[in-house]
């Protein structure tokens, strides 16, 4: 076996001692004998090292060689610190972006769910493209029908969301609560961390009201207080007992703070909820029966759904094109994020490709400069393998540094990207920095390193056989020059694609940001003053009117109004609208009645929000329950139903079954269109009811003469003074409400612009690098030209033209590629890409950047010292 180091030293010492003894026996002087023996032995350490290497296994030996390769590479890179830093930084950007995005993608799309046997869970919903809605929940009547017909689903769980005023945990406030039947938690496969969950014993009107707290609410608001189990809380009008805390799970289908049983919600026991087929507010889940597949369950439920639709044609108008969707639970969770994440992954991939091609460029330029060094090494006997190994070691050092920096960079990026992805899927909420960062970073670095080591051409054996005359400086072969330019073109092309994407998103954002909304955005403060759903009635209206009167008396208040809807923030809560018609309106045969939005407003609402009255009058104190039913309509309603402009004093009525028997209402006024559902305003068919005739409100608007936010404290104090338990929430000006709604769009544009900016930066460095290299390679040429009388301006122009040419070709290639991509996008239903300002802007930006990048090398070309340049020849 391999001898230890001490044994080797002993052996060597023995050798020398014997050698000395022999010399002394031959009559040499002891001191001289010792020196001679030492000299004869030669280098002790080297001998010992070569003995040790005999005993080392081959792979260890390879590793030792590799370590020394790396040492040499580090030394060699020390002479090119600027290049090494640039390369490492670019790779860091590329690797960091990819690692972060990949980590989020992996966790969002592929991490297992906490639900037991999550792959057996399905999500059921309806869609009605005719109503413009792809996600319609169920009514209890529909759920009863489906449940009765199903055998492939072992059990169903239902979940509906309701706002309750919660008293018992700190200040009274309105919380979002889930209402579930006893099968829900069993179907979803969730467990409690404390106490128990709602089960079949909690079903029925005789059960006690109980509530389960979500883990997030328990940990954040209640600081993990274990004594909450058994506590009594007030939920709206009922007293409920807290029976347990749910394990950490996704805040889905709704982010609620607690989940109650059906009996806790009087609304759920009411006739509307139980009987009304179109009262759809319940999410439906199912667990597959043993042996059943999703496809079987889908087929069965679709058949049952078709039967149900045939039995109740009044609830499923043909034009709505209602149908049933059954899909795996996990798909439903992640589908919205999938496209966005794949887009991000694509963008990150492009950045990596750009970074690599740029690094390849720099490395290529460097190898051309060291062609003579490589030739000398080859002449001294380094084989092609050894040269490649040297280059590989260098690129490994570069890429390794890049990977380390990239992984460091990726950690904060994971937060940014997951916050972004959380807009699309709740699964991104609990994304953490995980080890996949490390292995993605390492993998990418290895790919880059191997690719880079094979970029430079090695001196051919032919070249070494006939060494060319030793010329100071470097020669650049046309092939290398072309390759450099090709890389630069590729970078520009890829950057162009990214810049276009960012440009399109940015222009859409700008259009949204500056769209005219029709409201007085900055001076109107909106507040939620919600009442429990069962409290609405005459008393509620009295309360709101009294509140209005008192707030109007506050200093700095110019007007106060009540409504049931804060623009944009409440988008969707009223569903896709209701069908209505009017006398004198002849609909085209076979067509549906128009869908209108119903809004309930107090007198003065339009003045307070700055919406102009176009004709007729505003509501007033006489539009009461015991007077003639009246409405105000938006301009679009007036124009569409009364093309002759005589809407005032005609009557309209709702034809949707939700309203029961048609009750005609006289049109008393016309107001300008305002689109309170969409941030990009479109025409809006809106019908306004007076608050006194449809007692439902909960949204307070205050028009301020000064700073609207200064009114928040006095208004809250005033309302609490009237009713200490009344929640007053979410104060914001209309401008800020809209800003919040736009935040995801802004984040979208921001993230892609970030990628595009990185790509642009790298591409500019790339173009500058190529030109700088080409200038330094042509120093002699420029010297000769200048000596022959060429003007410096001409030389500068030539360099600039080369830069612009690279950029133009790059943009053209990018445009071709982008066009191809957009064709693919079209086939997936995206809008075709128009040749408008984002694209032109991206092209101009890139070419301008290329010119800027060419300026420094051009200036250097013009400063070529003629004498110096000629002397080197």
């Amino acid at each position, binding site marked *: 076996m391999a001898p230890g180091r001490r044994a080797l030293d002993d052996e060597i010492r023995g050798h020398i001692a014997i050698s000395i003894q022999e010399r002394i026996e031959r009559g040499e002087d002891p001191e001289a004998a010792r020196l001679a023996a030492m000299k004869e032995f030669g280098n002790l350490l080297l001998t010992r090292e070569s003995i040790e290497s*005999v005993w080392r296994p081959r792979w260890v030996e390879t590793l030792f060689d590799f370590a020394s390769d790396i040492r040499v590479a580090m030394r060699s890179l020390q002479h090119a610190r600027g290049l090494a830093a640039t390369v490492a930084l670019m790779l860091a950007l590329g690797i960091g972006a990819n690692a972060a995005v990949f980590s989020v993608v992996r966790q969002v799309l592929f991490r297992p769910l906490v639900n037991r046997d999550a792959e057996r869970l399905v999500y059921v919903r309806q869609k009605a493209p005719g109503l413009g809605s792809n996600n319609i929940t169920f009514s209890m009547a529909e759920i009863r029908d489906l449940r009765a017909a199903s055998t492939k689903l072992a059990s169903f769980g239902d979940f509906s969301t309701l706002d309750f005023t919660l008293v018992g945990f700190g200040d009274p406030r309105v919380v979002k609560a889930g209402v579930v039947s006893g099968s829900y938690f069993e179907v979803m496969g969730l467990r409690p961390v404390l106490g128990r969950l709602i089960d079949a014993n909690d079903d029925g009107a005789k059960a006690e009201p109980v509530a389960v707290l979500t883990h997030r609410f328990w940990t954040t608001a209640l600081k993990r207080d274990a004594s909450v189990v058994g506590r009594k809380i007030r939920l709206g009008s009922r007293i409920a007992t807290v029976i347990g805390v749910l394990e950490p799970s996704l805040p889905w289908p709704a982010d609620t703070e607690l989940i109650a049983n059906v009996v806790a919600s009087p609304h759920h026991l009411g006739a509307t909820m139980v009987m009304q087929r179109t009262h759809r507010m319940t999410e439906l889940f199912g667990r597959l029966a043993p042996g059943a597949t999703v496809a079987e369950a889908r087929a069965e439920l679709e058949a049952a759904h078709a039967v149900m639709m045939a039995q109740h044609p009044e609830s499923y108008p043909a034009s709505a094109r209602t149908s049933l969707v059954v899909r795996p639970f996990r798909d439903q969770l992640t589908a919205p994020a999938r496209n966005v994440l794949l887009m991000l992954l694509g963008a990150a991939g492009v950045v990596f490709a750009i970074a690599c091609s740029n690094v390849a460029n720099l490395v290529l330029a460097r190898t051309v400069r060291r062609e003579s060094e490589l030739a000398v090494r080859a002449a001294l006997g380094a084989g092609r393998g050894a040269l490649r190994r040297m280059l590989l070691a260098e690129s490994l050092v570069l890429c390794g540094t890049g990977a380390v920096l990239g992984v460091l960079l990726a950690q904060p990026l994971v937060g940014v990207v997951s916050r972004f992805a959380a807009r699309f899927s709740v699964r991104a909420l609990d994304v953490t920095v995980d080890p996949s960062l490390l292995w993605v970073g390492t993998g990418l670095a290895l790919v880059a390193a191997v690719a880079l080591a094979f970029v430079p051409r090695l001196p051919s054996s032919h070249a070494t056989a006939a060494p060319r005359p030793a010329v100071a400086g470097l020669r650049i072969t046309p092939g290398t020059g072309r390759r450099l330019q090709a890389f630069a073109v590729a970078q520009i092309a890829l950057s162009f694609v990214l810049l276009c994407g960012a440009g399109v998103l940015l222009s859409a954002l700008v259009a949204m940001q500056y769209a005219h909304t029709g409201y007085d955005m900055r001076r109107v403060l909106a507040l939620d003053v919600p009442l429990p759903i069962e409290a609405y009635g005459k008393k509620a209206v009295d309360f709101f009117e009294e509140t209005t009167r008192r707030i109007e008396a506050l200093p700095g208040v110019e007007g106060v109004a009540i409504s049931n809807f804060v623009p944009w923030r409440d988008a969707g809560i009223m569903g896709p609208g209701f069908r209505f018609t009017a006398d004198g309106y002849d609909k085209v045969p076979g067509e549906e009645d128009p869908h209108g939005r119903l809004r309930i407003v107090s007198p003065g609402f339009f003045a307070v929000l700055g919406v102009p009255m176009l004709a007729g009058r505003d509501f007033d104190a006489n539009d009461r329950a015991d007077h003639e039913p009246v409405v105000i309509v938006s301009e679009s309603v007036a124009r569409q139903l009364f093309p002759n402009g005589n809407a005032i004093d005609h009557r309209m009525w709702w034809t949707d079954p939700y309203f029961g028997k048609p009750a005609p209402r006289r049109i008393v006024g016309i107001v300008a269109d305002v689109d309170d559902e969409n941030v990009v305003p479109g025409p809006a068919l809106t019908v306004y009811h007076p608050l006194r005739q449809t007692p439902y409100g909960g949204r307070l608007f205050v028009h301020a003469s000064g700073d609207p936010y200064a009114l928040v404290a006095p208004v809250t104090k005033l309302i609490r003074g009237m009713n200490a338990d009344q929640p007053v929430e979410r104060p914001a000006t209309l401008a800020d409400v809209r800003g919040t709604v736009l935040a995801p769009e802004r984040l979208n544009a921001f993230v892609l612009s970030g990628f595009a900016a990185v790509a642009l930066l790298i591409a500019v460095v790339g173009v500058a690098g190529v030109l700088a290299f080409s200038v330094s390679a042509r120093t002699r040429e420029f010297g000769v030209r200048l000596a022959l009388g060429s003007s410096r301006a001409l030389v500068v122009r030539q360099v600039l033209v080369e830069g612009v040419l690279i950029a133009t070709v790059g943009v053209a290639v990018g445009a071709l590629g982008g066009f191809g991509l957009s064709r693919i996008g079209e086939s997936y239903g995206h809008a075709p890409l128009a040749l408008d300002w984002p694209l032109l802007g991206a092209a101009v930006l890139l070419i301008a950047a290329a010119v800027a990048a060419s300026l420094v090398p051009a200036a250097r070309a013009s400063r070529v010292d003629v004498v110096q340049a000629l002397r080197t020849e």
Partner: protein
Amino acid sequence: MAESPDDRRLELLQGTLDMLILRTLQWGPQHGHGIGQAIRTQSEDLLRVETGSLYPALHRLEKKGWLKAEWGVSEANQRAKYYRLTAAGKAQLLREQDRWSLLVEAIGRVMKVAPTGEE
């Protein structure tokens, strides 16, 4: 002018050191220094093995199982590592000797052929 021994010294042919070591050890176990000296004296000072080559070669042969090493004491009472030929080593020596004689004969034949043009 007489040639000094240093001028006449021969470069060891590549691949022959192993054979020389095995051959030297045929007469019995020996330590590294002794092997070096034996090659030197038996070649009448024409071959001199550098310790930098000798020791790695000894260890290589030991690793291959042709030699076995054990600690012993030299005639001058010095602790030294002695190498001994194993059975496998003996077989290897025979193989190398055959190969060597074949090589010498082959090269000798080539070199002894008189150039026809000069006869």
